[in-house]
């Protein structure tokens, strides 16, 4: 099968709607297809990967730990909108440390998260073959 560039745009907060969870399910399946996969967290989507989520009180499954699996599936291009973080009074320190092991660098553990501007996001999006937004 040919290789295409897929980007997943995550724009919604988790738990209020299912889009965050079901988007993650798509991304994990997609990994098996060995495509070129990028994830972008923009708008309220940045809340999906915030640290310290605790869903005991709302009776829903806390799926935030699953994002840590992305590195194992070779999904390591994770873009987070600088503008979206800033508007919400958040910084990269509020985010879960998502990492991968770089096989080209003696399996060194590296961060998958890259904070990008709207201008950079625009450029990244323009290079994609398929864009799914959730």
């Amino acid at each position, binding site marked *: 099968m040919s290789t295409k560039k897929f980007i997943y745009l995550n724009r919604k907060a988790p738990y*209020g*709607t*299912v889009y965050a969870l079901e988007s993650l399910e798509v991304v994990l399946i997609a990994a098996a297809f060995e495509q070129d996969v990028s994830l972008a967290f923009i708008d309220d989507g940045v809340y999906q990967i915030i640290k310290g989520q605790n869903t005991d009180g*709302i*009776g829903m*499954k806390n799926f935030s730990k699953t994002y840590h699996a992305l590195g194992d599936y070779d999904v390591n291009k994770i873009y987070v909108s600088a503008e979206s973080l800033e508007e919400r009074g958040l910084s990269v320190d509020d985010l879960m440390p998502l990492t991968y092991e770089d096989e080209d660098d003696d399996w060194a553990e590296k961060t998958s998260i890259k904070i990008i501007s709207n201008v950079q996001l625009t450029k990244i999006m323009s290079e994609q073959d398929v864009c799914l937004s959730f």
Partner: protein
Amino acid sequence: MKISIQINEGPYQHQASDSAYQFTKAAIAKGHEIFRVFFYHDGVDNASRFTVPPQDDRHIVNKWAELGIKNADGSDVELVVCVAAALRRGMLDESEASKNGIDGNNIHPAFRISGLGQLIEAGIQSDRLVVFGD
């Protein structure tokens, strides 16, 4: 106090049904009477006995049907599904199925199909009506 609930969205896609369930449980725990829970719009999908969530996730339909939905005096909480909204979304009990020539039905027996008048009546008979939606 006598409280009724209206739920406008289906299970899993939106938090509405989860929030309403937690609210209902808390109200009953405080000794209030839940006069009626009325499922409208996509809310009717909360009544499907076909629902099979993943093993590690909550079973919203069964939670409504089985857990904590008795009032303090031991009476059942009425779970009413709007018939007009249900039919156009493929939610049928035995009677509606046979009336419409469909060979099957999917309404959980803990729920009852009825008309929109039941929502208005809930508004009239209850001290409060609280809506949960998108």
